[in-house]
Each structure stands twice: as C-alpha cells, then as structure tokens.
C-alpha cells in the first residue's frame, strides 16, 4: 500500500464541539511525523481588557468567555477576587454556589453525553438523527439537561450568563418554597441520570489507554467542585496560589490557544477522568455504586470511557443538589461585603471540562491591574495531541474519510471547549 505510506489528512471545521478547530496529520514513510490540533477561534483578548475594570466586574465579563460553562468562569472569578480582598465566603452562600455549579455540571455533561458524544457510539451524525429512531432516548436526555438548566435558572436567573452571581455571593437568594419545587424536579432527574449511566455503559469502547499525569482539585470529605487544592496522579500536591509555579503555558505557532504543561514533568490531563481517578473516594455511595456497575475501575485512562465518568458525575451532581436543597436555608443577606484591597488573588474551580484557574491583581481603588485565566482545554491540548499521534499510527490503513471520522470521535472524547481555549475540526492528513 505505497500510496498510503506518505499522506496528509485534514479535518476541516470539526462538528459537535464547542468552537472552531482543525487537525493536521503528516505521514512520512508510513509513520506519523506530526499531529497538530489547530485552534482557529479568533482571539477575544479578555485578559487585556479586564485591566482597568472594577473588581466587581470579572464574574459578568469572564462568563462571556464560554456560553457552555459560564458558572465555572463566574465561580473562579469570584474566588480569585475574594482571595485578593482577603474575604472568605462559606456557609449557606458557599452551599448555594455549589448548588448552582451542580446545575452547570448536569447541563453541560448531559449536553455532551446526548447531543455531542452518544451519536458517535451509535453511528448517527447528530442527536436529531438519533431522535428519528430513538425519540424516547433523546427526550430523556433533553429532560435531564433541562433539570440542570432549571437549577441555573432558579439560582442564577438564567442558564447562560447567570445574572444573580456577584463577588461575595448572590444578589437575591431563592425562597425555600422555590427551592423545594426544584427538589421535586431533581428527584425525577435522579432516575433519568441512573438510566443514562446504564445506557452509556452498553456502548462499545475501543481498547485505548494513555499514561498521562492527571490533575484535579481535591477537597477532603466531598467531591471537589467549587474549591479545593491541586493534586496529581504523579503525587504532586499544591495550593491554588502556587498554580503558576507548577503550570507553565506556552504559545505555540499553530493556535490562538496556549498549551500548558507541568514544570519539569510535561503534559497532563484535567477534566472528568482526572477528577474521577483522583477523587473517587469522595463520591457518594450511590454514585460509587453506579460507577462500579457501569464498569469503571479505580481509575479511568481510556478517553472513550470519559462518557461513563460524565454519566457518573451527573448522578453525583443530581444527588448533591438534592442534598443541598434538603438543607437549604436562604442566606440573609445573600452576599458578604467584599471591600476592595490592594493585592493579588488566586481562584480555581472544577469546570465541567477541568480545572479553571483565574488570577487578578487589584489596586486599593478596586481597579483590576492584571488578569490571567488558564482554561481546561489549553491544559489538555498536549495530551490530546499525544493521544491522536498514537491513535492515527494504529489506523494508517484506513481511507481518509474513515480516518477523519474516527479522529473527530477521538477528539470529542475530551469534550474540548474550543471557545474556552480561546476555540474546531479541519483535519488535514499530509501523506505525500
């Protein structure tokens, strides 16, 4: 098959991912020379125009980096600003933040499971085509997704770019009655979440494993979402304030996103599989039981099985939301005062796609002097490229259209949020 020993594969405008990207593969003499995941989302310069804004503005402004995970941006921004001002927010306000965040995990994970990822396993171009043959399945997914949106609408005011979040807490706390009504909906959602996990467990998972170091936040006693310290599978442990000492971002030529690696160690992976691997012990008994039932071991190193982890995390997030609803007392007032203070603040939370880090400098008048944001996708890019290199090497005998399709699927395993990374697929395979 000499005509295949040299080739270039190009995937243009990758579908069912958030944002725009492309993939270039260069094959020389029958082996993969380079794999480049190119991000061509135009830059929007958030870190630059945040300078000179008021310290109360980053939650609303940075939400606009990503319409799929605005709560993650709002929560990391609040954490960093509050850290700069020396204020700790806990108790009922922190619980309400965790509840809002559970809503985003449910919505974002279910969107990925049903609308973006499942069609690949079942051989459909989209969930809408899937619905023609299995309307009940897609309807269940949409209902479960809606439960996540219901949480965000009640607590945040709306599901995309919530209006109710502020530095220090919330503008208005929902009433106990409203929260109780939400509980009713989530009890239905819990069954849908369990059914979803059992459904995806029946998919066919290619035998593919990686050995990347995995990184997640951790918090003793519960599955880390809105706060925690950083740990890795390689044994590193550090506080969020030391994030930039350990995570080095580089600007690579083929992309408007930055690539991150761990200082002195190299590529790593953040996101659902990393969280599960590092924090499985802190899952609830029911979500750990469903993880065992769907066949997840003590770690998840098969990117295809990330769909199982997302489904387990949905079960967890629904259960956790129900627990927080049960214990809910409206915080009064719904926010703590955060007077400005000159300083530097650091914040990190577990966005649906992994650790999202923010750092702000604030001056004594409350104006932002510097801003730095490290989203999950730029942290994962080097690991994704490494997986793709091995993936393509095993499939070089496939015709271009099939290889392209399979590469797209491999990339979707990571649910790369391209808008976040600043940014999808245009696959070029250069085999000549």
């Amino acid at each position: 098959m000499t005509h295949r020993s040299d080739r270039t594969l190009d995937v243009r405008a990758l579908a069912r991912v958030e944002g725009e990207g492309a993939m270039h593969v260069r094959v020389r003499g029958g082996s993969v020379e380079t794999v480049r995941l190119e991000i061509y989302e135009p830059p929007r310069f958030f870190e630059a125009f945040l300078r000179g804004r008021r310290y109360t503005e980053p939650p609303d402004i940075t939400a606009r980096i990503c319409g799929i995970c605005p709560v993650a941006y709002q929560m990391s921004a609040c954490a960093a600003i509050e850290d700069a001002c020396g204020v700790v927010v806990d108790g009922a306000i922190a619980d309400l933040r965790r509840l809002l965040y559970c809503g985003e995990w449910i919505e974002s994970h279910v969107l990925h499971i049903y609308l973006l990822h499942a069609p690949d396993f079942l051989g459909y171009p989209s969930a809408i085509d899937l619905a023609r043959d299995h309307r009940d399945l897609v309807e269940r997914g949409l209902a479960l997704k809606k439960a996540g949106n219901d949480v965000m609408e009640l607590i945040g005011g709306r599901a995309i770019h919530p209006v109710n979040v502020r530095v220090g807490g919330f503008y208005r706390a929902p009433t106990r009655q409203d929260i109780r009504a939400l509980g009713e909906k989530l009890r239905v959602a819990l069954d849908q979440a369990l059914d979803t996990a059992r459904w995806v467990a029946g998919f066919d998972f290619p035998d593919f494993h990686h050995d990347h170091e995995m990184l997640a936040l951790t918090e003793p006693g519960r599955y880390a979402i809105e706060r925690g310290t950083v740990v890795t599978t390689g044994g590193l442990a550090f506080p969020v304030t030391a994030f930039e000492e350990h995570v080095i971002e580089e600007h690579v030529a083929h992309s408007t996103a930055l690539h991150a690696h761990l200082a002195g160690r190299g590529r790593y992976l953040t996101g659902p599989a990393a969280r599960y691997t590092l924090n499985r012990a802190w899952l609830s008994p029911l979500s750990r039981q469903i993880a065992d039932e769907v066949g997840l071991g003590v770690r998840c190193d098969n990117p295809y099985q990330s769909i199982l982890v997302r489904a387990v995390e949905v079960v967890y997030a629904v259960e956790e939301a129900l627990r927080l609803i049960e214990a809910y007392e409206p915080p009064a007032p719904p926010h703590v005062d955060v007077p400005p203070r000159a300083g530097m603040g650091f914040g990190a939370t577990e966005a649906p796609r992994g650790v999202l880090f923010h750092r702000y400098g604030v001056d004594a008048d409350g104006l932002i002097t510097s801003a730095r944001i490290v989203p999950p996708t730029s942290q994962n890019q080097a690991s994704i490229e490494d997986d793709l290199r091995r993936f393509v090497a095993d499939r070089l005998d496939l015709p271009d259209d099939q290889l392209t399709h399979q590469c797209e699927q491999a990339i979707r395993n990571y649910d790369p949020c391209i808008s976040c990374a600043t940014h999808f697929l245009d696959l070029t395979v250069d085999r000549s």
Partner: protein
Amino acid sequence: MDAPTLAVWKFASCDGCQLTLLDCEDDLLAVAGRVRIAHFLEATREVLPGPYDVSLVEGSITTAEDAERIRRVREMSRTLVTIGACATAGGVQALRNFADVEEFRSLVYAHPEYVSTLATSTPIAAHVDVDFELRGCPIDGRQLLEVITALLVGRKPNIASHSVCFECKRRGNVCVVVAHGTPCLGPVTHAGCGALCPAHNRGCYGCFGPMDTPNAAAQVALLRATGMADGDVERASRTFNAGTPAFIELSRVTTRREAHRDAPL
C-alpha cells in the same frame, strides 16, 4: 415541498447564543421536525450544501478571513438573522475598538506574530445586509423561537422594541433605582429578557443593547444621581454592546462633561 433549510454560523463569540437553541429542550425536536438542519456544527457533523433558507449568525467579525466568510454566508442565505450582542454589536470583544489592539495582542500572547486579528470587532451588519437582528447576551430562547416560527411562515417576527423599564412595570418589579438607589441601565436597554436583573435586586447592565430611541443624557443624569462616578458610567456603557452608537454616545456624555469640568477656569 421540502422542509426549509436552517444553517447556524459562528464567528467570534462564546457559543452561548447558538446554545440557546439547544437549550430550548421542550421545542428542539419540534423545530428540528419542521426544518432541515443543513449546517450547525455545534449539533451535527452532517453538512448540506447551500443555498439555505434561513441562516442564524452568531459572533462578530474580528479577522480578515471572517470578513470574507460572512460574504459567502450571505450569498448562500435567503434570509440572514444575526443572533446576540456579538453579531449585532461586536460583543464584549469590541472593547478593543477603544484600545490599542497591538498592546492587547502582546499582553495575552507570548508570540503576538502568531495571532492575526483586526484592530476592531464589528457587527455582521457592518459587512453584509442583515434581514433581522435579535439582541441579547445571550439572546432569549422564547424570542429565538418566535423569530424562527415567524420566518417559517413568512411573517415579521413580533419582537418588542421598548425598554427594560417597560418590562419591569409589566412584571410588577420594584424599581431598583427608586427603592434602593441602585444604578440601572434599564431606561435605555432593549427589552427581551423580561427585566431579569431588577427581578433579582440588581440594576440592568445593558446586555440586550440599546433600545430604539434611547435618551443618553437622561440616562447619564440618572446614573450620576445614584452616586456613580464618571469612570464607572463609562465602564457601564462599555460592556457587551460597547460598539453600538447609542452606548458610545452614553460613554461620550461622560467624557465631554469631564473634559469641560477639567478645563482651566
């Protein structure tokens, strides 16, 4: 007759406005049953060739390639609707229009030369004819369904053009300016959200952009009366719809006054 084709396009944006369509969980399959989704990368890998009956365009123009791409999209579309503040006003990324983009580029990227970008972020209507503009950051799902439904039956979308203030009164909200002295952009902001922020005890921050006939001078006076400093009035007018003439006017009212006050007496 074949179902009309619907295409969704993305330019510089956060994906939030197209997500609004996927967030219409109760109506998504019904809409998908009435149209042929011909191009919607966030939802399907199947791409049908143009021309398209309706194109929904999200995002603003920030690169020379995108300025070309939007022309091709226009040529392929019978009706072109822009969705959201990025597409109708340039979005939050239009804050570069008031700054030095070279400085921005070198602040964010170690190798600014790798990143090609225009000095401005501009709305779609600055490049091609637009048939309907739907406002909001993000757009409202009910309004989006109204626009799609109207276009499918060939009537004009029924989208009110009054201010957020009007929606507050209809919803029975307490006015946050009168009751709490909270600064609010409601009087100059386009309706559509149902007065969401005042319903949450906060002032409107203008995410739906300017209403059709805003009174900038009166708005500035109101913001000042709540004790807002001039720098904050300027910041308030420069967020997600900073590129609209009405909000530029709002920020200028401040600068003109400031210039006047600072002039030697």
